[in-house]
């Protein structure tokens, strides 16, 4: 997977955010990359998000992923990707959205419910500590392990200018 499309990792130790959406963007990204089972396991240890009704979905569809050749090349359609999405409104009237890769409807609904719940400042810190932080740490570990494996197989190509 191209690295450029995987933005939104946890910034390290930086809690001053000029963009008011940055924090929400981060938890949405972390929830989307987790699996339903991982989220459910963490939810068992914490307070459940408030009940919600479904505004749309959960439903499965395709999104066109756009690519770009090089830094300045023209955009092209890389391919279609299966995505599950869900939008919910919880009892407190907060609306949460989730788009997750794959076909897991439960995952989309859980992520949307948590997105709605975490917009409540009274719950945000507790939920973030109980769910988002451990998920983000696990994702960072998995990614580091993967990168370590890939780095070990790296081959440096170079041309010997004097070979005739």
């Amino acid at each position, binding site marked *: 997977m191209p690295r450029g499309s995987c933005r939104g990792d946890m910034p390290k130790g930086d809690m001053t955010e000029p963009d008011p959406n940055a924090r929400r963007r981060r938890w949405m990204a972390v929830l989307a990359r987790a699996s339903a089972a991982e989220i459910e396991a963490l939810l068992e240890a914490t307070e459940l998000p408030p009940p919600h*009704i479904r*505004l*749309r979905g959960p*439903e499965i569809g395709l999104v066109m992923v756009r690519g770009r050749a090089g830094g300045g090349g023209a955009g092209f359609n890389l391919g279609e990707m299966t995505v599950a999405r869900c*939008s919910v*409104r919880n009892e407190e*009237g*907060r*609306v949460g959205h989730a788009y997750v890769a794959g076909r897991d409807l439960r995952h989309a609904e859980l992520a949307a419910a948590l997105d709605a719940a975490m917009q409540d400042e009274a719950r945000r810190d507790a939920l973030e500590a109980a769910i988002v932080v451990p998920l983000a740490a696990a994702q960072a570990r998995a990614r580091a392990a993967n990168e370590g494996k890939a780095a070990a197989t790296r081959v440096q190509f170079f041309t010997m200018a004097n070979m005739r």
Partner: protein
Amino acid sequence: MASLELPGFADPVGGAQACFRGLLDAMARPGTLHEVGELAAPPPLDPATASVLLTLVDADTTLWLDEPCAPAREWVLFHCGAPLVADPAGAAFALALAMPKLAALSAGSDAAPEDGASLILQVAALRSGLPYRISGPGLKEPALLQVQGLPEDFAAQWAANHALFPRGIDLVLTAGRLFCCLPRSVQIGMG
């Protein structure tokens, strides 16, 4: 977030198909009343209005909303995803609670009369009110349609619209859970 409190069709595919089937029948037989299924509509829209919107309007159609529809704007944007336009002349669909001048909407061109706009107009009632005599294709003999809430000069405006044929505006009237259609081919007089 104010008006985004309600879901759309409980069954998006089935709901839209059932309503579309009703719209086809209603367009083919002008003035006949059809009923939509259960739908919790965002105020100030009625269930029929909301169902017709969900069925016909999507990201590929431009939509114009009149001022009284504003409280439902968020709901319409979220569930239909249609690009809103400020100028009614540029809209493929217009949604109104108070009828705009038909001449203000796009009537299409002679080369592409299908570009004529469709006006979804929510009226006060469809089984009571002023009787209008309608005749034309799809009607074996002239029929009476009772509508409450149309402007006084509706018949005159419609005559001008009908005279544009094949260009013109198609009208969908909605009230409560009922709707009926008046395609541009229909002639309307006071009953």
